[in-house]
């Protein structure tokens, strides 16, 4: 059986004939399920040809059509790679820096990545603003002294800070509304963005369970004694108005609705906002204090 291995080095691909125990073991080992046409035996030449690849991404290579493709393992790669040329530092630098810049640009253009970055920025700003406001509120004001001057300067700074936060928030709302309109309607754009960012996208969020969504973003470490409880969903609009003893119950039902909303946004792309908002209001009435 003639077997070759394809090994990519920077932008070149090398085909190396392989034989010996490593190749035998690899070729006989994790064998892909033969397709029907192969099992029928279409032509002997293609069946004789075995190509060992190491990167599953190479499967799409048209040069591999008709050959039996086997995924190689690490020991075999170690042996093969020693035979191949090693590029110089200058070549490698040029190639890797260029590839890195391209990949970074591609990743940056991804809407989920942009949303994650924007959400982080918005959270950071919100925390910082809270800190500043707290600091200012506890600062004693005495008219006609330097503390007065300080507070005036601080007020200017806070105004600029709030403007910046509002701009980032507007941008974030636009992004998250485009990605997940139903979820945004249900819990507000901030919470929707945080949920999506924590889950790593709308689809991962849609695939997760309501119980997972409920504690998403919780900082506490899971332990058998005391589990995580308060995730980002506890910061959603409306949760603060629920009386504390019933808050957890409301968040549980809200988490279930969030998952439904994320599924609508990720898969069916139907607008479920109205029925979900009606169900949220029903849940709110259920937890409202009895008169």
């Amino acid at each position, binding site marked *: 059986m003639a077997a070759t291995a394809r*090994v*990519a*080095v*920077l932008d070149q691909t090398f085909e190396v004939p392989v034989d010996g125990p490593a190749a035998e073991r690899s070729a006989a080992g994790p064998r892909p399920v033969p397709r029907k046409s192969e099992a029928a035996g279409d032509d002997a030449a293609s069946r004789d040809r075995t190509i060992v690849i*190491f*990167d*599953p*991404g190479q499967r799409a290579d048209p040069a591999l059509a008709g050959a039996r493709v086997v995924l190689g393992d*690490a*020991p075999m*790669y*170690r042996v093969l*790679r*020693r035979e*191949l040329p*090693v*590029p110089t*530092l200058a070549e*490698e*630098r040029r190639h*890797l*820096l260029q*590839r*890195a*810049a391209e*990949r*970074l640009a591609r*990743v*940056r253009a991804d809407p989920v*990545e942009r949303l994650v*970055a924007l959400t*982080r920025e918005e959270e950071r700003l919100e925390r910082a603003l809270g800190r500043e406001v707290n600091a200012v509120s506890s600062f004693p004001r005495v008219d006609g002294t330097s503390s007065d001057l300080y507070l005036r300067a601080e007020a200017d700074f806070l105004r600029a800070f709030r403007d910046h936060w509002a701009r980032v928030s507007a941008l974030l709302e636009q992004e998250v509304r485009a990605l997940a309109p139903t979820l945004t309607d249900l819990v507000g754009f901030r919470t929707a963005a945080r949920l999506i960012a924590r889950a790593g996208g709308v689809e991962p969020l849609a695939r997760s369970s309501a119980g997972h969504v409920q504690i998403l973003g919780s900082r506490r*470490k*899971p*332990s*058998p004694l005391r589990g995580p409880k308060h995730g980002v969903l506890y910061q959603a609009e409306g949760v603060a108005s629920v009386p504390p003893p019933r808050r957890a119950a409301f968040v549980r039902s809200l988490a279930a609705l969030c998952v439904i909303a994320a599924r609508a946004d990720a898969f069916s792309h139907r607008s479920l906002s109205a029925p979900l908002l009606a169900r949220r209001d029903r849940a709110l009435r259920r937890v409202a204090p009895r008169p």
Partner: protein
Amino acid sequence: MTRRSSFHPSERHPRLFSRSADGRWEWWTEACGEPPPVYGERWAYTGGRAVRAIDPHRSKLGAALLRGWRGRLPRVGERWLYLGAASGTTASHVADLLGPHGHLYAVERSAGPFARLLSLADRWPPLLPILGDARRPRELLAWIPPVDGLYVDVAQPDQAEIVAEAAAWFLADGGALLFALKASSVARGPSPEDHLRATVDSLAASFQLDRPIDLAPFHRVHYFLSGEYRPSFDRRAQSSRGPRTDWRPGGARDGGPPRPDRPRLRVR
């Protein structure tokens, strides 16, 4: 007034310096690039060479040096693979040790820190940044030849598996491993010492490990593991050879062989 000694070249490495300031030791590496500082570290000049201080609170390698770690350092001109390079704080010091003709393949997954790493790489010759996932070494194969050393600082629950996998694909026989283990990101429940023991046990199959270094007080519940890669290393032969288990936390204190019924922890 700060009392400082002059820079002492280290006998361990031609590009490593130490000095004492106010009774505390500091480690400095000879810079591979030009100022400005990479992460706000201090620069100085000694004998016509630019040196940069390693901040032990920012860099686990710096903390390990201060805590008395004496393992194998990256040598000048070698090829090293760095998993979890983030924005290049420690990676720049490892690159310094490798020198202008060394290769440091710095793998980072997340785009934000990687952008900073990329801009650093423009002015730091040995640094070769790769945007990729350390968990999927197959996707990195085209870019990384066999390396002489592996530095891992990934703080992931499955960090021990990441080390074993990356070593199997990339690390040459006899290559060095430097591994900053963050015990608190492994799993819930058991103590950091249990995590350390489980990690040491799982790596001992293919590495000859040095004594682990506790990085407190610079980094809480972090350990620094170093060792030599021995893919065909037989651990049973090792344990029968002598008291290799004496330093293992929670292991046999008298230097005897480990109890066979000791519960094995699963590292997630």
